[in-house]
């Protein structure tokens, strides 16, 4: 029901990302065995599955850290299966990591500025001189960062602190800010809520909804998460993965009532196995 309302809101139902029969092996271990996935523009598409199911491998294939042995990946209709990660970033794919991978020695502001890398233009000579265009460009992008990202994520008070010194929850937030600075069309969130306390989880869920729904952002999200309550609340569609195989790809309601999912992933226990 919710999903329907949303797709109307977005007008068109075009496919932003498509995985077509993707195989990924490590030696003889099949991490992904023929995965197909279609992510619609404007959706929050969650990927769930037990530990070791291949969720992170799938994310690494989408943003280019791994290159699948077989199968194609299309982004906006273009085959990106052979591109390096930095080329995919230029096309508009950003991600956050399961274990925070921020630049510890840089300040929060510099981390987010680095996210603007693909939008900045100055090269070695321009940077060395730092006059005219380079200086103007830095100020323009600083305005964007302050108004759109630092304000959205409520991290004004730490903008000059080195990220390595910040608590884990804030590092996760900075990492999200850095990914947003890229102005992505597709945002991959690999366990954005892991290790956060309840308040931080609620904040993070709010940020994800904000960037997904606000007119200025309209970012399509792929969400890998173990917190079923959040997943079921936020997602338009849920994809269930188990040992490299797809179990079901459907709306949260369909997934919750699927007996195979309950058996394979959630066990006999309570469906809402969350910390709430």
């Amino acid at each position: 029901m919710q999903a329907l309302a949303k797709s109307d809101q977005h007008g068109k139902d075009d496919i932003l990302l498509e995985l077509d029969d993707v195989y990924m092996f490590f030696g003889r271990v099949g991490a992904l065995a023929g995965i197909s996935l279609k992510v619609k523009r404007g959706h929050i598409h969650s990927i769930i599955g037990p530990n070791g199911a291949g969720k992170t491998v799938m994310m690494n294939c989408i943003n280019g850290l791994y290159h699948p042995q077989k199968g194609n990946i299309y982004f906006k209709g273009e085959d990106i299966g052979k591109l390096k990660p930095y080329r995919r970033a230029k096309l508009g794919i950003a991600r956050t990591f399961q274990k925070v991978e921020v630049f510890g020695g840089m300040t929060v502001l510099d981390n987010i500025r680095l996210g603007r890398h693909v939008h900045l233009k100055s090269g070695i000579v321009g940077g060395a001189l730092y006059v005219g265009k380079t200086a103007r460009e830095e100020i323009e992008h600083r305005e964007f960062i302050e108004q759109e990202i630092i304000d959205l994520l409520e991290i004004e008070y730490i903008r000059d602190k080195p990220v390595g010194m910040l608590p884990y929850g804030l590092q996760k937030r900075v990492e999200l800010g850095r990914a947003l600075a890229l102005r992505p069309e597709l945002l991959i969130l690999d366990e954005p809520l892991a290790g956060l306390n309840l308040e931080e989880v609620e904040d993070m869920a709010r940020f994800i909804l904000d960037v997904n729904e606000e007119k200025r952002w309209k970012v399509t999200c792929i969400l890998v998460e173990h917190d079923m309550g959040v997943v079921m609340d936020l997602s338009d569609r849920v994809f269930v993965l188990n040992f490299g195989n797809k179990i079901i790809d459907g709306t949260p309601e369909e997934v919750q009532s699927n007996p195979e999912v309950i058996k394979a992933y959630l066990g006999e226990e309570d469906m809402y196995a969350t910390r709430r």
Partner: protein
Amino acid sequence: MSTTFLPCGDYHENYKQDHAWWQTKFIKLKMILLFAVLFVGIPLCADSYWLSVCNLVGYTVLGALGVQLLIGFCGQLTLGHAAFIAVGAYTSTLLVLEFPWPKFLLDLGLAYPVSIIVAAIAAGMWSVLFGLPSAKVKGFYLILTTMAAQFITVDFVITQYVSQIGGRGQAFSLPPGTIKVGPWIIDSNLKVYLMMLALVILCVAIITNLLRSRVGRAWIAIRDNDISAEVMGINVVKYKLFAFFVAGFIGGIAGAFWISNLAAISPEHFPWFWSLWLVGVILIGGAGSIHGAIFGSVFMVVVMELLQLAVIPLADTYPKLLMDFLFIKEAAFGLAICIFLIFEPNGLAYRWWQVKNYFNLWPFSY
């Protein structure tokens, strides 16, 4: 370590102020004072001997800046930087001595300045060549490939082939009057000193500017986390090679500058130990800070000079001390690094930063 706190009561009102070099009146005053001391104070007070010490400091700073860029900012361990300094020195020497300069350039005294630029670019390109392995090799293994740069460049190419140019076989002598900048012939320590100041300020400005723009941020990102740097859209290999180019470029300037201070150059001026020395300088000064390269150079050179001054009076009683001074110097170098790694692992620059913040925040401690 990257930012200092503003003193109580100072606020920025726009982003331009926040991006500025010297952000408060106090800092501007301080920098003017520093320049006054450097350009007027030292030339007036120091005698020729201490000026030559200052020149050695400047040479070390220029060399250490490149190493600092590679190790401290881009995370590419290098142990062959003397090779690129040598390339710069030899390129500049050969151009000045052998190149058929047009008459008007010689009259204007532009031959040497032009040769510095060419030398810097040549050293940069040479450095990129030996930076290529960094595309595949990381960390400690990179030390070996950069050491190869040292041995291939200095011990093989320069000693065996470049030195044969003009049939000299060993050293190139630089007759008095060959090094000429504009109307001035660089023939005294004072003139070398002033040229050194200009070059050091230029290079520090280049690196500082790069570090606060797109390229420098990419370098630091590669140092801190190369995988997420690539995911954020940075072409890691390209930016590593940029770092090698700029480091080699500055090394080339260092080498081309140093020939103004020498009567002859030979491969022995650029031993492998000099590469190691430069790494020691940035360890003592503090990796990842431009202040670090400068403080480390000042510290190392001045300590070695003081050591020499201390040894000379002792030589009457212990004549062997003077004979073995080279070994004493190396032992002191090793000892200094050990002491710093144990007691001040972040280097002199970190201590300086702490002191500065203490006074900026005074009378409060937060």
